[in-house]
């Protein structure tokens, strides 16, 4: 071998070694993380029939990240968002998730306002091992059973609401005979199972369980069935429109001596609910669960509303705006605790150690090994149509009832 050839061989060996080092270094850098930025895929329904659940919450999450960037980012890295529209549709959401993971190479996924659509992406996320933090979807199906990469339900699952209402009815209102009305879907099933388990565990009796279609037009028959069961308390997991119809019929049929306990999802804005019910008598004995730390209707989350108006001066925030904040705060908190050493697996491990008082929700946001639902404690509020009074105590789901 000549000296020239030796030099060439040496140069080649050095080149190959350098390339190997570069490849190794690249392999060690997780997707979506560079020395000065973290890329997050943010998505929700920005068009379509469920747009109300997506635009303001997504804007609110973006606002949280923008605030972080304005303060210099997290450990020297700015957060860059890639925003997509999933239309709350399973097919769309799966497409969005695949695009964010394979094309945009995001570090984590943060999005989704509809549990059913999110559930469609669960298999892909698990296979690709990408952490998925739900934006504001809170249905039980995405977090039960717990899977490694999915984190969510920052507003509490139906297990939490059903359990809280049942505890309050039996322990505080001393109800022995409890009637339950829920929808004939997965939300209703989870709410009913938890409520029933708690009532029976505490020595009460479920005397009626009415499962109604979500789009019911006439609620007369189920309410007559409830009345016929002579309950001491009625627990409702109805959605906004059926919840109003229920309260109207409950007032119309003279059932107002029986406490009516409504889960949060039936009255996103209590004052609007009261106006819709239209009958003050029907609100005399009304209680509802509440998962936010602020109950004043008009001044609800003033701090966050003011911040929202600063970022989006042309948009009046809707009632679901704050629901996008807790998940973004959880992501920021986790990234801050992780330091600069970021990998997706380490993110999952750090997320499992989340214990965050969010300044939005009633209770702490927590995950753990085998736990992927963030909020398990809510308060119960008595609402007479004008004033709201928080009842003593925090009502927590024990992680078992209704499972």
């Amino acid at each position, binding site marked *: 071998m000549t000296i020239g050839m030796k030099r060439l061989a040496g140069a080649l060996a050095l080149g190959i070694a350098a390339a190997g080092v570069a490849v190794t270094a690249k392999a060690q850098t997780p997707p979506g993380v560079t020395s000065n930025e973290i890329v997050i895929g943010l998505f929700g329904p920005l068009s379509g*029939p469920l*747009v*109300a659940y997506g635009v303001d919450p997504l804007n609110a999450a973006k606002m949280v990240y923008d605030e972080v960037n304005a303060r210099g980012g997290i450990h020297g890295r700015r957060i860059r968002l890639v925003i997509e529209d999933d239309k709350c549709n399973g097919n769309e959401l799966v497409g969005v998730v695949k695009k964010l993971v394979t094309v945009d190479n995001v570090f984590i996924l943060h999005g989704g306002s509809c549990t059913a659509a999110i559930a469609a992406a669960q298999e892909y996320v698990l296979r690709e091992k990408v952490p998925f933090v739900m934006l504001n979807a809170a249905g039980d199906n995405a977090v039960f059973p717990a899977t490694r990469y999915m984190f969510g339900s920052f507003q509490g699952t139906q297990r939490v609401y059903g359990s809280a209402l049942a505890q309050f009815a039996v322990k505080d209102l001393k109800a022995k005979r409890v009637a339950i009305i829920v929808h*004939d879907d997965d939300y209703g099933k989870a709410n009913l199972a938890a409520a029933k388990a708690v009532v029976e565990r505490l020595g009460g009796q479920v005397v009626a369980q*009415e*499962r*109604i*279609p979500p*789009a*019911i*037009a*006439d609620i*007369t*028959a*189920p309410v*007559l*069935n409830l009345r*016929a069961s002579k309950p001491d308390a009625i627990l409702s997991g109805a959605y*906004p*429109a059926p919840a*109003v*119809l229920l309260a109207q019929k409950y007032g*119309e*049929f*003279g059932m107002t001596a029986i406490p009516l306990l409504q889960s949060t999802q039936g009255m*996103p*804005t209590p004052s*609007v609910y009261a*106006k*819709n019910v*239209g009958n003050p008598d029907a609100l005399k004995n009304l209680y509802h669960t509440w998962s936010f730390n602020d109950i004043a209707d008009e001044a609800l989350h003033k701090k966050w509303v003011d911040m929202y108006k600063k970022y989006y001066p042309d948009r*009046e925030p*809707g*009632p*679901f705006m704050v629901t996008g904040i807790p998940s973004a705060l959880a992501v920021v908190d986790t990234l801050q605790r992780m330091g600069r050493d970021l990998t997706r697996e380490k993110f999952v491990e750090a997320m499992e150690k989340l214990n965050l008082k969010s300044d939005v929700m009633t209770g702490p946001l927590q995950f753990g090994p085998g736990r992927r639902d963030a909020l398990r404690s809510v308060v119960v509020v008595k609402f007479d149509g004008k004033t709201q009074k928080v009842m003593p105590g925090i009502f927590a789901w024990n992680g078992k009832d209704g499972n």
Partner: protein
Amino acid sequence: MSLVLQGVASGVVTGCVYALVALSLVIVYKATDVVNFAGGELVMIGAYLGLLLLLWFQLPYIAMFALVPVAVFAVGALFDRITLRKVGGRALAKHVDLVSFVVATIGLSYLLKGAVRVVPFTEEVRRLPPLFSGPPVFIGDVVLQRQDLAIIAVTTMIMLALWLFFERTLLGKALRATSQNARAAALVGVPVSAMRMAVWGLASAIAGIAGVLLAPKLLMTPDMGAVVMLAFAAAIIGGFSSLPGCVVGGIALGVIQNLVGIFISPQAIAVTPFFVIMLVLLFRPEGLFGESLALKKV
């Protein structure tokens, strides 16, 4: 017993709701052979226009009953003038593609829903105050709201007004002539295109009135137009070509749903209309009051 009577009474009221919407569907179908899938959204537009007049312009209820039908009439008439006439070509064309018309109505339903959804105010469930407020009315053990009685009264009045219109007025007779045989009507000087536009306007106006009347009872969301499925069921049960039939069909459906909810299960309420439709199509495909299929127009 009071349980059953209450279920029947509430079912009659809810049935009148279905019947009102079904009326607007049947009028369009009789005149144009088109099934209007935007019928529910025209109801929804009527309700939201009512809310707009009440909250923003502080107008009294009576003004709603005057202005909403006019506005929704315009929506229906313009839809015919701008879209259907383009889609279907000449009014007397020999081979009219009804599928295109139906698809156009589906397009209208999406357009109206989308237009309403962009208004932030519609994010939450809303309700118009009842036409008549006050304590409920007791008939024995049966309790009804004054609004329920108003719904029954207005449905009856609209039925009577439509009967008088189609039987006793020249315009009504011209509309009937157009629906029975457009070519023959044109030969005797009936302006068929104008008549079809009037039919779309009239049916839309009825849907608008239904919206104002139903908004206190069914509550308002951009998806409240889904009630059209129950109106279809009412029309099929009563006979898609019969105005009185759809009223009877609507009331029957409302009562049956409640009785099923009481005696079988509330879970069965949602499937009841479709089960009844199956039975009707099996045993009397033309509906309870519909014309015999063999005698359908030439």
